[in-house]
Each structure stands twice: as structure tokens, then as C-alpha cells.
């Protein structure tokens, strides 16, 4: 029942909620980002980061520092924190925490399958996979030739198995199919996560519904924009939209028939929460759109911390940390390539 979580939440979740709030206080602030943006070299970045929570992870790195190393070590911190929480969690929090990583699993599966299609080495691909989305038989993905084999050999034992019912075909895998597969899997995952949160009820359902609805709408807009001008039919496009969220169902009808970005913009401007995002967009720019979506997402995730006694804080923390790692990657790349004027193009401040 919504409103009475305070009576029983702390039995199983109190300690971990306090832990995750402690982690949140370690996120980089605007002043940290300002310092990082002033850096001239990657060594400066490493020095500034060693004064923050990332210190122990970066201090032993040898001198020729690469951006990928920085990002890898920062991701390692996220993985350590996640595992610390997962080992101490009981049901249903442990299932909730596992759900958070299924998105990464889907990305890893698609990465390996695409890489194998382009004849890359499996070991090299495995190193590029996101550590949160690893599962045991992931290396066997390189063997599969079509989706049915993919499912039968590897994915049936993973948590992604129920998401495959909509996309098993016997066609051979190619770039287009893989993208469609990725989006179909992600759609099934979002809907499953949404249903799970609804089942949990109370404050978790309320807060997670809002965050997941925004995610579903954002993906709908991105799918629409990315499939403009490709051979994806309108029906196929409609099948990739999730069946919840602010845009469901009427927004999806409008998005399905859009043929260019201005039509997307005019259909989105009818929805007040997205109006502000799209009004920042001048004609034809999609990088600004990405940043605008990230800013809106960060705003909603920060709001999840305003309430106590629900699981939304765990999801929000993981997402905010990923955003921080994206910021660090962008700053490191700008510094490494000497393009510091473009640093503020894509950094989203969290605090």
C-alpha cells in the first residue's frame, strides 16, 4: 500500500538504501567537473580524480594513460559497488538489482554478434563488453549463425530467454536484423521491468513507472529518428515501440508515420514534458537532442532520491553513475584530442 512502506521497508532494504545514498554523495559535483574541464592532459585528469572517490582505482595506472583505461577503471568502481549491493540484497531487491543489468546484457549480446559478423576476434570483443552485463556462456555467442541458434545454444539459459519469443526467426543475422533484434529485446525487457515494478507496488511502482516511461518514450523517439530514411517499414517501426509510457498509444501512432525530424518535433511538442526538450532543438540537430534527453533523465533520477523507502534509488544511482562515466569519457576524449572548446557540448552536470 502506498504510504506505509516506512513501516516494513527497513527490515530488508534499510541498510542497502543507506549504503546507496552514501554512494550517491560520492558522485562528482559541478566544481569537480569544472576542475576536470580545465585540465590540459590526461595526467591532470588522473590527478584530479585521485582526490575524488575514484582515487584508489586510478592511482596504480602506469604513465601512458589512455581514455579507455580511465573509463575502464571508473566502470570497475561502479561494478564493485553494484556487486557489493547485490551480494547483500534479499528478494525482491536482488531481482530488482539484476533487472538493472539486463540492458547491458542485451548490449553485450548485440556487440558480440555484430563483431562476429564483421569477423572480429572473440577475445577482443569480450574485452569491450560492459562488465555488468556479462554472463557465463557469453563467448559461445560467436558460434551462432542465426537467431534460432543464438537462442537455442546460449540465450535460453540466461535471464534474457523470455524476451526472445517475439524475435526468433530463421533468417541469417545481418546488420539490420541485429538492430531490430536489439530493439525488440530491449522493448521486451522494458515491459517486463515495468510489470515487475508494478507488482512490487507502493512507492517503488510509482517512481519507477515514471522513470521507465521516460525511458520508453526516449527510445521511441530515437528509434523513429534513426529509422527515418532506412528500409524499416512503418509497421515494423510500430512493433518496436513499448506498450507503456506517456506516448502510448496515440503518440506512437503519430511517430510511426513521421518521415523527418521536423514531423517528429511537431508531434512531440504536443506533450508538455517533452515540449521543453524539443524547443531547445534548432532545425536538424540530433546531438543536442541526445544531451537534452540526458539532462531530462538526470533531473528525474535525482528526484528519485527525494523519497525514502523504495527501490528507485538503486536504479537512479546506477544510471547517474553511468552518466558520470559518460561525462568522464567525453572530457577525457576532448582533453586527449585537444578539443577543449567542445567539452561542454555533452557533459551533463548531475549536481
Amino acid at each position, binding site marked *: 500500500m502506498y504510504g506505509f512502506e516506512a*513501516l516494513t521497508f*527497513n*527490515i530488508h532494504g*534499510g541498510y542497502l*538504501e*543507506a*549504503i546507496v*545514498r552514501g554512494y550517491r*554523495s560520492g558522485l562528482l559535483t559541478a566544481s569537480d567537473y569544472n576542475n576536470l574541464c580545465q585540465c590540459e592532459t590526461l595526467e591532470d585528469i588522473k590527478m584530479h580524480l585521485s582526490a575524488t572517490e575514484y582515487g584508489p582505482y586510478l592511482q596504480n595506472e602506469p604513465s601512458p594513460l589512455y581514455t579507455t583505461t580511465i573509463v575502464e577503471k571508473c566502470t570497475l568502481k561502479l561494478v564493485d559497488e553494484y556487486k557489493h549491493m547485490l551480494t547483500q540484497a534479499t528478494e525482491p531487491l536482488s531481482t530488482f538489482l539484476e533487472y538493472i543489468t539486463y540492458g547491458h546484457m542485451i548490449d553485450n549480446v548485440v556487440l558480440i554478434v555484430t563483431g562476429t559478423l564483421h569477423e572480429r576476434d572473440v577475445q577482443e570483443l569480450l574485452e569491450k563488453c560492459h562488465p555488468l552485463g556479462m554472463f557465463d556462456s557469453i563467448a559461445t555467442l560467436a558460434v551462432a549463425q542465426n537467431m534460432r541458434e543464438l537462442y537455442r545454444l546460449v540465450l535460453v539459459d540466461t535471464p534474457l530467454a523470455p524476451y526472445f519469443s517475439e524475435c526468433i526467426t530463421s533468417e541469417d543475422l545481418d546488420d539490420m536484423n541485429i538492430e531490430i533484434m536489439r530493439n525488440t529485446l530491449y522493448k521486451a525487457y522494458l515491459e517486463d521491468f515495468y510489470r515487475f515494478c508494478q507488482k512490487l507496488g507502493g512507492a517503488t511502482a510509482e517512481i519507477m513507472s515514471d522513470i521507465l516511461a521516460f525511458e520508453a518514450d526516449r527510445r521511441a523517439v530515437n528509434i523513429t529518428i534513426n529509422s527515418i530514411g532506412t528500409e524499416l517499414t512503418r509497421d515494423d517501426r510500430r512493433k518496436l515501440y513499448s506498450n507503456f509510457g506517456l506516448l502510448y498509444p496515440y503518440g506512437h501512432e503519430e511517430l510511426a508515420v513521421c518521415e523527418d525530424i521536423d514531423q517528429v518535433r511537431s508531434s512531440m511538442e504536443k506533450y508538455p514534458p517533452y515540449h521543453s526538450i524539443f524547443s531547445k532543438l534548432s532545425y536538424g540537430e540530433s546531438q543536442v537532442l541526445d544531451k537534452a534527453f540526458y539532462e531530462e533523465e538526470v533531473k528525474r533520477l535525482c528526484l528519485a532520491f527525494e523519497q*525514502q523507502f523504495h527501490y528507485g534509488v538503486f536504479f537512479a544511482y546506477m544510471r547517474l553513475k553511468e552518466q558520470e562515466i559518460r561525462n568522464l569519457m567525453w572530457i577525457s576524449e576532448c582533453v586527449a584530442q585537444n578539443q577543449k572548446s567542445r567539452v561542454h557540448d555533452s557533459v551533463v552536470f548531475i549536481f
Partner: protein
Amino acid sequence: MVGSSSSWSAALVHISPYTFAAIGIAISIGVSVLGAAWGIYITGSSLIGAAVKAPRITSKNLISVIFCEAVAIYGVIVAIILQTKLESVPSSKIYDPESLRAGYAIFASGIIVGFANLVCGLCVGIIGSSCALSDAQNSSLFVKILVIEIFGSALGLFGVIVGIIMSAQATWPSKG
């Protein structure tokens, strides 16, 4: 006697007043301790988790635990006071109106104290949990949230006062 000899009200007045008094005493201590324990675990689990990142909060935030504990102490005190009110009366007078009144007064006093302390303990516990988490992020918030806790713990005190007043006039009929 109220009612006819086989109605529910007749059954109620034939329950010994000592039963009611004893149940009242049990509720006063039992439910108070339930409230205190509930509050302490709500505060304690958040406090331990928050102290991992910010160890400085532990000593100050024990105040929240102490406020919850006070609620249990109120229950003990009232239970002891109530049990001193129990006197034996000759068996001819057990069902006198005077006796019934004394028994019911002790029962009511126990319920008042027990349930007031239950909700007080819960209230202080939930506020204490938020207090620990906020203090870990920003130490200037501690004193302000403590004021809310103080108001919350006054609820238990109200219950104790009313309970003691109730039980003060629980006089059993004199012997003879």
C-alpha cells in the same frame, strides 16, 4: 445487573475485573516494547548503512535510538504503577460495580499507554532513519530534524500522563 441473564452484556460483566486489569498491564508493557523495537530497527538499519560512508554520524544519531528506547521505559513504568493498583477484594464483592470500574480503569490505562507508545515509537523511528540519512549528507540538518523527533516523542508522554491519571482513580471496594 445489566441485561437479561443470557445476553452478551451479562457475559461481559461476569468476566472478572482482574482479567481486564491483567490484560491491561500486559498490553501496556507488551505493545510499548513492540513500538520501541519497531522504531529502533527502522532507525538502526539506516544509521548503520549511512555510517559506512560518514562515520561521524554514529554518536549523534544514537539520540534517535534513545528516544525510541524511552518509549519502552514509559511502558515499563506504567506497568509497574498499574500492578501496584491491584488489590484483592473478598469474593462476594468481585462483581460489584466498584470492582468492575477499577478493573476497567486499569485495562483502559494499559491500552492508552500501550498504543500511544506504539505509534510514538514508530514515529520517532521513521524520523530517526531520515535524520541519519540527511545528517550523513549535510550535517547542519541534524539539529533541525531532531526538533521534529522531540515533538514526536511527546506523543508517548501524553499517553503516559493520561494513563496514570486513569489509573489513579482505580479504587477497589474496601474490605468489610
